[in-house]
């Protein structure tokens, strides 16, 4: 049996948990560690930390946050933002991350995926893709938190990255991100049919049945942010609804 994963995504800027819409117009939400602990206790299957300004300023201030989080959160943690080298990845993995998510640096230098996979294994390399739909209906991968257009068409880039060592794909629809209007099902269908590594769909979670739609369209996991941060929905209800619609989800066991 394979359980789909319900993942809480925490975008971080400096010391704050933040949230935007279409990865822009960021608002402060609160203390990231507090939210991480809250989601862990509510039964999140994984956490994703994304340092949203790291690639803009080349900073890596998220290490301390990860380190403090890992002291009392015992589920997998993926960390992305500003990872430019094997040594950056090592620092984060040592701080408590289980996987690193890479976008901008991989587009600039795709071999980085291979270098990290060779040292830490493909299972710790997540390719983060910020997909934006173009006027001609194609999807293009963006970098720097949805700001810069890359030369890659999304599927072409994902396939290349998997060949190079990415063990998992975090696929974010920039168009849906922060809107709570539902996942981009067309996007996940398009990508998931052509790949053979786990895919996390991100961007747009807003209603209880969005999870089932995402999974039926090919997602192995869904990442959620606004809907949890603003308490529109609870992880308990999302899990119960997923189960009720026939999805396999982890049955969370309390003490």
């Amino acid at each position, binding site marked *: *049996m*394979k*359980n*789909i*994963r319900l993942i809480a995504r925490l975008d971080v800027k400096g010391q704050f948990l933040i949230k935007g819409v279409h990865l822009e117009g960021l608002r402060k939400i609160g203390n990231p560690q507090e939210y991480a602990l809250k989601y*862990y206790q509510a*039964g999140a*299957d994984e956490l994703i930390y994304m340092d949203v300004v790291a690639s803009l300023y080349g900073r890596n201030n998220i290490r301390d946050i990860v380190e403090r989080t*890992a*002291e*009392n959160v*015992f*589920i*997998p943690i993926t960390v992305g933002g500003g990872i430019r080298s094997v040594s950056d990845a090592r620092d984060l*993995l*040592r*701080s*408590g991350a*289980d996987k690193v998510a890479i976008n901008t640096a991989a587009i600039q230098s795709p071999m980085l995926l291979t270098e990290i996979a060779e*040292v*830490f*294994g*493909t*299972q*710790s390399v997540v390719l983060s893709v910020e997909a934006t739909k173009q006027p001609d209906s194609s999807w293009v991968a963006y970098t720097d938190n949805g700001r810069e257009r890359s030369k890659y068409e999304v599927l072409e880039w994902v396939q290349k990255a998997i060949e190079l060592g990415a*063990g*998992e794909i975090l696929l974010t629809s920039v168009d849906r991100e922060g809107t709570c209007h539902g996942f981009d099902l067309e996007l996940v269908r398009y990508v998931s049919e052509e790949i*053979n*590594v*786990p895919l996390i769909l991100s961007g747009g979670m807003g209603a209880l049945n969005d999870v089932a739609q995402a999974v039926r369209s090919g997602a*192995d*996991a869904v990442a959620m942010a606004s809907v949890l941060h603003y308490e529109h929905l609870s992880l308990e209800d999302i899990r119960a609804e997923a189960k009720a619609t026939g999805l396999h989800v*982890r*049955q*969370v*066991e*309390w*003490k």
Partner: protein
Amino acid sequence: MEIAVLDYGAGNLRNVCRAIEHLGYQHCLVRTAGDLKTIDKLIIPGVGAFKVAMKQLKERGLVEAIQEYAQQSKPLLGICLGMQLLFDRSSELGETEGLGLIRGSVEVIPDTDVEGGAMKVPHIGWNELEFDLPAAEVIQQIRELSPVYFVHSYRAVDVSYENLVAHCVYGGETIPAIVQKGSVVGCQFHPEKSGYVGLRILSGFLGD
């Protein structure tokens, strides 16, 4: 009682250490064969590649030291790659000999399932344990509990039924999840990343 986590340069041992601390136990890191002599409980964590890990164990003179430790029937817990190292050999990055504490070998998870459909590798996520043997004392508490977190591309094969305590099923493929031979136990999943259930498994191993 001296609890030790093996630091052989591979893997992410900090997460295991944090979980041990969270459970209220003290521990030390062991890096040399000499360190191992005074240890009562040993955990071998592991993320990374089999071949590289064995090379690091050899360079530190730890292969024989671990084998001697196990011969004294002292508790040993191998996690993920640390579990795979307990077997005779692995084919990861070329055939490599393991610690040989439990019979079996380690092979890549096939990328097609039993019906010929595509199967995603690595196996990442929460999966249920199915018990094949009455669980050992160490892990008794986890029966009937919620799933545990797996992340791996290789799995044990040819494990003798008497050593296979629990397995999970992935794409129709049986994946050994808990193996045991005497005081030597291996978990393919990560108890330090499996929430409360994982912490309980660890606590079962750490407690008396």
